């Protein structure tokens, strides 16, 4: 009967979640940073209602 090493399992899945979740967050940040300057620019040009 081999040991289960649940700690390592948790560690592995934790690392995976951190990496994948971190990349998701990076995408969200990028999207946000792309949206705001455009909004400001359009506002300046008086194109927003």
């Amino acid at each position: 009967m081999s040991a289960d090493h649940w700690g390592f399992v948790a560690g592995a899945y934790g690392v995976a979640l951190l990496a994948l979740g971190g990349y998701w967050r990076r995408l969200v940040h990028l999207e946000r940073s792309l949206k705001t300057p455009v909004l400001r620019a359009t506002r300046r040009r008086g194109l927003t209602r």
Partner: protein
Amino acid sequence: MTRSLGIVAVLGVVVAGVVAFGLAPREVTQGNVQRIMYVHVPAIGVAYLAFILVFVASITYLWTRAPEADHTAHAAVEVGVLFLGVNIATGAIWGKPTWGTWWTWDARLTSAAILFVVFVGYLLVRGMTDDHERGARFAAVVGIVGALNIPLVHFSVYWWRALHQPPTFLKPGPAAASASIGWSLLVCFAGLALLGAYFVTKRYALLRAQQQASA
């Protein structure tokens, strides 16, 4: 469309998690530490899909110079490197209780590490070239060379290790004797693949928006 893909991807990952922990059986020889395979193996699969996309997109870019192809390649490299990193990290964490050390230069881990460095080089070339269009061109060449190199890496590393380690270490994860383990791996691969597809699509859209904003 991207948003629905994102929702489906999250669902896919949740399903994968349920399968990996709830439905997949406790493996006989290794115990529950084998469950790490359900993220470790699918991750490399997604990475390979990504690098195939890099290869096709890079060639397309050099042929047509369409920025869409370049954005696709760029996004695919990021996602490929990401999943490769997950594969390497989870592989090392699985290795510690199983083999006793964090890192053994076994064929799979070594191949993955080499590919990781190659494609990080792709991102470095993009970053270090001042002219964006030139960086895209150079990166495409690196992408093509890197992708073509993948089979060479596999054979060379496999042959290199074959003399020094028993074959059992070289088989991917557990021996696929159990059908339920096979099915579980497939489901988890599908879940991670959906996530990867969402990442590539989203990153592509952001790259395009970035390019249009600076135009």
